[in-house]
């Protein structure tokens, strides 16, 4: 690691001021310390916010849950309210990383983790995300883990989070505090940027802004939620593709249907047109296929990741069958209960 100054922040004001001044914040550190060891990240000042009070609780609000930025992945996945009311969130978190990592990784840190594109993680290699203008060797290179949706000529790095896919599905909002103390709420879809010609700009956060919590709205009891992750080994691996879904059936029709996707997008992927196509319709293989075609219409592939087109299509259809009751539920598909 490059030398740095370590400061333990006592409060959110101190953390915000430091962040506005260019300091890097650390909480769980499971991704940042890794990148510092690789010298992909080399902060001059590291501000530890792990002990800032008021960021570590899960609270019930009128709209749903407020999940503090420092709530660990383990605590969130195991929370009885989340397991009942938002099982897809538990399932997504439990499908990611290892027990040790989940015990340290935090809610906001998970949202802001960096891509695992091998060229981004190798300082000896060009990378437009790490060094703007240096090139993208993932295009035409080792691209098995890269994205097929939301890519640009400059970057095809996939967003690695499972949790963020479930939160995108759940229409969660980030609670963001500016250094001056003002607070704004931002849907996750607007938090993340696609790379375009600025792949180094990954979020719409402004200097000094800190994610202090994530708000997850209620989901009607009786809906069915699922997270299905396909990967190269059975555990502790990033997604090749993942599909998160919620369906609420009424008289044989999908009164509500939402899907979100991981492993395929440069940000946690959501396709409002596919949701609209499914909503209000009777489930059928033809309809599921039509929805998959819609999601994949904008896909741009490399030799190494072209397999993701049929893999995502099949995984999406399999999840929709379970969500609508056309196939028996497997582990990862759960009925939503009223959590209280």
């Amino acid at each position: 690691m490059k030398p740095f100054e370590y400061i333990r922040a006592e409060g959110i004001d101190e953390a915000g001021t430091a962040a506005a001044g260019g300091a890097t914040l650390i909480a769980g550190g499971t991704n940042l310390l890794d990148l510092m060891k690789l010298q992909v990240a080399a902060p001059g000042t590291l501000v530890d916010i792990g002990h800032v009070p008021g960021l570590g609780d899960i609270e019930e609000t009128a709209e749903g849950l407020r999940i503090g930025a420092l709530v660990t992945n383990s605590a969130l996945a195991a929370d009885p309210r989340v397991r009942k009311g938002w099982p897809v969130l538990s399932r997504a978190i439990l499908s990611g990383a290892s027990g040790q990592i989940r015990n340290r990784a935090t809610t906001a840190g998970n949202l802001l983790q960096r891509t695992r594109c091998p060229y981004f993680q190798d300082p000896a290699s060009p990378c437009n995300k790490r060094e703007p203008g240096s090139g993208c060797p993932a295009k035409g290179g080792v691209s098995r883990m890269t994205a097929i949706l939301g890519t640009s000529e400059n970057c095809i790095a996939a967003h690695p989070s499972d949790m963020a896919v479930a939160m995108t599905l759940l229409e969660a909002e980030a609670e963001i505090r500016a250094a001056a103390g003002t607070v704004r709420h931002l849907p996750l879809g607007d938090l993340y940027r696609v790379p375009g010609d600025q792949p180094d700009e990954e979020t719409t956060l402004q200097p000094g802004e800190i994610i202090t919590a994530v708000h997850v709205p209620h989901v009607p009891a009786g809906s069915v939620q699922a997270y299905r992750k396909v990967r190269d080994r059975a555990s502790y691996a990033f997604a090749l593709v993942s599909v998160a879904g919620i369906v609420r059936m009424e008289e044989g029709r999908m009164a509500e249907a939402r899907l979100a996707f991981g492993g395929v997008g440069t940000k946690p992927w959501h396709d409002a047109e596919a949701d609209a196509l499914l909503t209000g319709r009777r489930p059928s293989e033809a309809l599921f296929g039509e929805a998959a075609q819609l999601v994949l219409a904008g896909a741009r592939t490399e030799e190494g990741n072209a397999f993701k087109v049929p893999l995502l299509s099949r995984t999406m259809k399999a999840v929709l069958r379970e969500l609508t009751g056309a196939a028996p539920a497997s582990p990862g598909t759960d009925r939503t209960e009223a959590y209280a």
Partner: protein
Amino acid sequence: MQITLTVNGETRDMDLDPRVTLLDALRDHLRLTGSKKGCDHGQCGACTVLMDGRRVNACLVLAAMAEGAEITTVEGLGRPGSLNPLQQEFVACDGFQCGYCTPGQIMSATGMLAEARDGWPSHVSESLAGPVALTDGEIAERMSGNLCRCAAYPGIRQAISNCAGTSAEAAKEAAE
């Protein structure tokens, strides 16, 4: 910088560069070499210790970040001649060959058994409602952050399974 760590119940003061990880502080400064450095990137689990009772990768925590926490290493579980039940089961079940990953496996299993007692579900749990039955599949999933390059996995699973039974019974007795 001055850093005070609480390790296996003892308070230890050190003067460390901010870059020193908890793992390097334990091994190089406190001479507690039970925790092993495998990958140094959180992928192999050989450095697993307990931090306030929960298992973590000591290589992915700065020593400065661990100040104020209760750290437990394998040296804090049992000693030669007075092994704890999990350590005894690893011996009885051939839960290792070269032994390099073993301290991490044992610390991870210690944390994992506590998580299961607390009713935490896993990726392979059929229901999120619990209770947790530690089948071979559940143990394998929950221990996926610990690699064994000798592939002593059947013995490791058996050792943990034997202790899962006793810890579940102990918890039940305590509840009664």
